């Protein structure tokens, strides 16, 4: 079974040279730590920055320079700053190549729920609805099952939706899966030591298993 860091590490392998990438909060933020050496990737922060750099050295924090998670960050050579409307303009017009975000639930037709638990949590959707509605390539980093062992990969989402029919790839602590255009989760890889039977038991939506399913590799 994969840790959160290992989920991030596996997703980082999907990032290609020349990509502009938007990373959501949580596991997706960790992906930045594992971007393969030697490729050029520009991170977009939807509060208005392209070319997000590392955290500042102690004592060099700048209150005017934060990322979408409100963390102090730095710029890099080639960075640019813009307003919020332009930030979502470049997202909507699909200039951003890849979006990586978290989810509470994903359905077998690619619907995603990640912003609201009725009666409990009302934090808001932030930029998530814009990102999922427009991104050409979205990878979801999420837990396959909750603490009670119940599946979060469902026939139909139970929580209020963030977007419909938009998710194509999912990486969980158990597996890498594609969402098929006709519906269903196609099993591509399993985490080391995790059986197909366990993934089947942990997936409430339709799981498609064809041929040999290799173990996920991180190198």
């Amino acid at each position, binding site marked *: 079974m994969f840790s959160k860091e290992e989920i991030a590490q596996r997703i980082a392998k999907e990032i290609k040279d020349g990509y502009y990438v938007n990373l959501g909060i949580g596991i997706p933020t960790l992906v930045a730590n594992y971007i393969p050496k030697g490729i050029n990737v520009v991170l977009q922060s939807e509060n208005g920055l392209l070319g997000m750099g590392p955290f500042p050295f102690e004592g060099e924090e700048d209150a005017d320079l934060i990322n979408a998670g409100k963390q102090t960050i730095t710029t890099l050579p080639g960075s640019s700053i813009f307003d*919020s409307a332009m930030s979502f303009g470049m997202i909507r017009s699909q200039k951003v190549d890849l979006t990586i975000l978290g989810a509470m639930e994903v359905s077998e037709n690619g619907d995603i729920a990640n912003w609201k638990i009725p009666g409990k949590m*009302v934090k808001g959707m932030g930029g998530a609805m814009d990102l999922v*509605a427009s991104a050409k390539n979205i990878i979801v980093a999420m837990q396959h099952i909750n603490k009670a062992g119940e599946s979060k990969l469902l026939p139909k989402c139970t929580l209020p939706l963030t*977007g419909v029919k938009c998710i194509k790839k999912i990486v969980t602590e158990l597996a890498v899966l594609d969402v098929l255009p006709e519906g269903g989760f196609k099993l591509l890889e399993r985490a080391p030591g995790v059986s197909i039977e366990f993934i089947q038991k942990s997936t409430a939506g339709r799981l498609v298993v064809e041929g040999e399913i290799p173990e996920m590799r991180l190198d």
Partner: protein
Amino acid sequence: MINKVVSGAEEAIKDISDGATIMLGGFGLCGIPENCINALVTKQVKNLTCISNNAGVDDFGIGLMLKQRQVKKMISSYVGENAEFERQLLSGELEVDLIPQGTLATRCLAAGYGMPAIFTPAGVGTEVAEGKEVRNFNGKDYLMEYAFDADFAIVKAWKGDTAGNLIFRSTSRNFNPVMAMAGKITIAEVEELVVAGELDPDYIHTPGIYVHRIFQGKDYEKRIEQRTVRKRSDDSEI
């Protein structure tokens, strides 16, 4: 040259009265109009509708206005950092319209560009779409969202001049330029106010035509919400 300078926050907000709809720039606590928020708290205007990406934290930013129950309705995209907000919302004391961040920004932009509405795919098929017109363009569904109609926009800039021209600094730009364009009356507070002519026209982010009142703010706290740093020995990429 038309002079836009007022004496300070108190004068700038003097005609904001109960029931007004106001836009407030900023993302989290970054680039918020601290001086004007404090003046609104002192003035104790009530029943405000506030359009702002976030709602501050419990003891800073819009959170100060929420604590005094000055806000009737919030229009925001993300309010997760404010416990008092969440309490008032769940108890029904506060009306809230949560809308996608890109929709929020673009509804400001539309107002500033004189366009009555926009079409965006954000929220299609979700509860955000309820009651809204859906149009299909090139095989994809879009929601019609209206331009905002705000009595006042209050923004924070880094530098400004007496003609109302504004320059923002780093990511404190965020919603400020689009809100500056969107208010019927726009108030700008700046860290440094200079005489018209000192700012290079080529480097102006917001032209003074959009700004009705400007003043140099004071005592900026510029609070950091998440102070994240790395050690000098740390060579990690991020």
